[in-house]
């Protein structure tokens, strides 16, 4: 059996699946149930300053994008940080951590961007016995209007400053949670590192309007006839999150900075993908908010089966394994040639590949074979764009077959040559000329 235990910046948990700071971790009742279901850790719902807590809207907080069978593909929310008093949360955190010493309990924090509030709250958290703190520099709505959340996360200098305070006023590990609502994720990650962060976690939610009510001409979710943008999460955001994790891991300055991967983790496979791109663990919110806490059982069994099958002994042994293969476009082999090949046995003759190739690509598919309805690739036109593969409803029906070195590509009439990329390509005005 593969070893799923996780040691993330010194915080131990029986598996790498943590619940992200969000409604699932907003109170003791939930967190206890989560731990009973098997979650390895939680990041408690973000706490604010002492005193009167924030208030949430009393109308709908969520909006969603669905597939045809109401499968939830993307979730949008306009919820703020916890709306329960600080003392209550702290008391509950202490009680849960006492009863579940083997689970990770990290506390998410968001207080005004001044030294004093941070200085005040950190000892209170430390006193609960929590394993660490996560600085919420990501919440993109509501709190950002008050100069917190993503308003801090969008300014690297602020990230660095607050992180430094936290390291200064506390002995706890500090995770900085990043907002994706920026142009280059490497800059806030570098800032966190300069401030002394033990790790970064990403992504928080993406600015979004889920949909527009076309009768009332207002964005959804609507509160009393109007709406505000929210934060987008769930399966739809995974590709964006994966790329941001990879960007940080590929960046020499931050390559060694531990990352907690968040954003659309719904199955064990999603988790494995984040881990392969360098995440030391993953955090989950929407999947739990869609299916309840028991989804973690599938995540645990799936990850462990995959690790067993691949001979991966520990989670640590697969962290970052895909990073060496994440490259820039200019490094890609322009002499690598493939051709789409349709498996005639598997083909159900829907003609989708033909429609898209004919209308929007390279006119490389025939729609008649010996005069009858049938679909076949014309190698002399196929540029191997992969569109037909993506639209074909039958899995594995169209595959990309490599044209071996030395063989003629019927499209260009030239033999397939050795590796060469854009950097040396004759059409590239800035090409590096090989020495004569």
């Amino acid at each position: 059996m593969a070893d799923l235990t996780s040691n993330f910046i010194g915080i131990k948990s029986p598996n790498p699946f943590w619940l992200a700071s969000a409604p699932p971790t907003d109170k003791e009742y939930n967190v206890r149930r989560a731990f009973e279901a098997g979650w390895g850790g939680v990041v408690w719902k973000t706490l604010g300053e002492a005193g009167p807590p924030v208030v949430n809207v009393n109308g709908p907080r969520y909006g969603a994008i669905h597939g045809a069978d109401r499968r939830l593909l993307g979730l949008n929310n306009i919820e703020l940080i916890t709306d329960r008093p600080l003392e209550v949360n702290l008391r509950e955190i202490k009680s849960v951590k006492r009863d579940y010493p083997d689970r990770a309990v990290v506390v998410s924090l968001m207080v005004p961007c001044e030294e004093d509030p941070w200085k005040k709250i950190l000892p209170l958290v430390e006193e609960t016995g929590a394993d660490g703190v996560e600085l919420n520099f990501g919440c993109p709505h509501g709190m950002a209007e008050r100069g917190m959340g993503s308003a801090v996360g969008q300014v690297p200098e602020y990230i660095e400053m607050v992180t430094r305070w936290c390291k200064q006023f506390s002995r706890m590990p500090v995770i900085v949670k990043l907002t994706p609502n920026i142009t280059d994720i490497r800059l806030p990650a570098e800032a966190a590192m300069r401030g002394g962060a033990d790790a970064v976690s990403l992504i928080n939610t993406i600015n979004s309007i889920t949909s527009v009510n076309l009768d009332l001409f207002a964005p959804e979710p609507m509160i009393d006839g109007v709406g505000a943008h929210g934060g987008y999460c769930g399966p739809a955001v995974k590709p964006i999150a994966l790329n941001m994790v990879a960007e940080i891991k590929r960046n020499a300055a931050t390559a060694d900075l531990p990352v907690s991967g968040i954003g659309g983790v719904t199955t064990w496979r999603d988790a494995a993908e984040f881990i392969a791109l360098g995440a030391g663990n993953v955090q989950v919110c929407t999947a739990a908010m869609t299916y309840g806490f028991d989804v973690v059982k599938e995540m645990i069994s799936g990850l462990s089966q995959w690790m067993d099958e691949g001979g991966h002994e520990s989670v640590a042994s697969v962290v970052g394994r895909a990073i060496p293969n994440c490259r820039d476009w200019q490094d890609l082999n322009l002499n690598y040639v493939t051709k789409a090949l349709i498996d005639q046995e598997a083909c159900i003759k829907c003609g989708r590949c033909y429609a898209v190739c004919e209308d929007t690509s390279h006119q490389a598919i025939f729609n008649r074979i010996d005069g009858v309805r049938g679909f076949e690739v014309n190698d002399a036109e196929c540029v191997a764009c992969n569109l037909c593969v993506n639209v074909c409803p039958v899995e594995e029906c169209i595959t990309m077959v490599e044209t071996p070195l030395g063989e003629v590509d019927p499209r260009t009439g030239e033999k397939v040559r050795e590796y060469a990329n854009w950097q040396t390509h004759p059409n590239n005005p800035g090409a590096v000329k090989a020495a004569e």
Partner: protein
Amino acid sequence: MLNTPTTPGIVAGRLPANILAENFSDLHPPLTAHEALVAADRCYFCYGAPCMEACPTTIDIPLFIRQIATGTPEAAARTIFSQNILGGMCARVCPTETLCEEVCVREVAEGKPVLIGQLQRYATDRLMAAGGHPFARATETGKSVAVVGAGPAGLSCAHRLAMKGHNVTIYDGRAKAGGLNEYGIAAYKSVDGFAQSEVEWLLSIGGITVETGKRLGDGLSLSGLKSGFDAAFLAIGLGGVNALSMDGVNAVDMIADLRQSADRTDLAVGRNVVVIGGGMTAVDAAVQSKLLGADNVTMAYRRDKAAMAASEFEQDLATSRGVRILYNAAPKLVDDGAITLARTETRDGKLLETGEVVELPADQVLWAIGQTLEGAPDGVAVEGGKIVVGDGGRTSVDGVWAGGDCAQGGDDLTVTAVAEGRDAAEDIHAKLA
């Protein structure tokens, strides 16, 4: 109620009214909005879609399904009606398993077609329930056309002509319009008086007058129509039946009575019913006898299963309702509450009796051995029991068109009749222009 399924003889009221109502409810209950979205999502939006080619009215199936999937079933219905104005009835009665759904790529691949018929019903129901009519008439042309027969072929032709601005008068010998939609189709395929409400809805385009109780050949003549109108379309269906050589009732008559009964408690049915035939009419008669409360219903067909005209789906429907199907059994004698059948086999393509006989108790024998053309006007060429037609449904007589069951070409199906009516209308319109 005193009678039960086992009461001897041919009696009414074998089942209480509430059970009868349940038995004759919708064969396929309508899809809910969510079911429709899920079903629609299965469509691949095929290029040159095979389903569309298999539809006799060539409805743009991938388009209308996509319109359902995107939350616009009314637009889907317009796509359907623009090709097939009786798309509502066709959604209920088409043997989709031998038409569009048979060639759906998902049937071929997985044995589970996209539910085209049920999706079609979903869309058309929505639009019809919303009220109003989706099409407007063109400017009146001042031309008039006579249509004989208010079945699917006649109605479809009349609607298309009215749309083009012509004035149409439909004559039908029966008391109600609709043809076999009203008098023939199995009751559980067209519930809640759908046939009549569909006719009403179709006529709401305007420009069409329906005169029921008027028969061609009985006060109305073709020459009269030719002189009174600019064109005539014959859509008289197959009104006759093959003559019976033994005792019993015509299945189509039994079905017509059944369709006209309000609650079916007044319909007499045998305890032991034997239906002779292997087509859709035989299945309908057998199943409906069972649903009326007959104790034993046997369908006897003289050839084997493969030769049966009723589709596999129809045969399964019959057996699932408790009908026993006896293949290779030809009727010899009906006598004294029993029927004697000779067992047959096919050798070298010839149907032969094996010498073996079976005798079944039979209080009631229903004959479903085919309908025939009756009342084709003199002078119109008939061949092989059907009115001879060329392109666009032109008959041998100038100015006279024909379509539907009474005319050559196509299967005898509602949807084929609709297609032929529509195409004849287009041809008539072209000729009148």
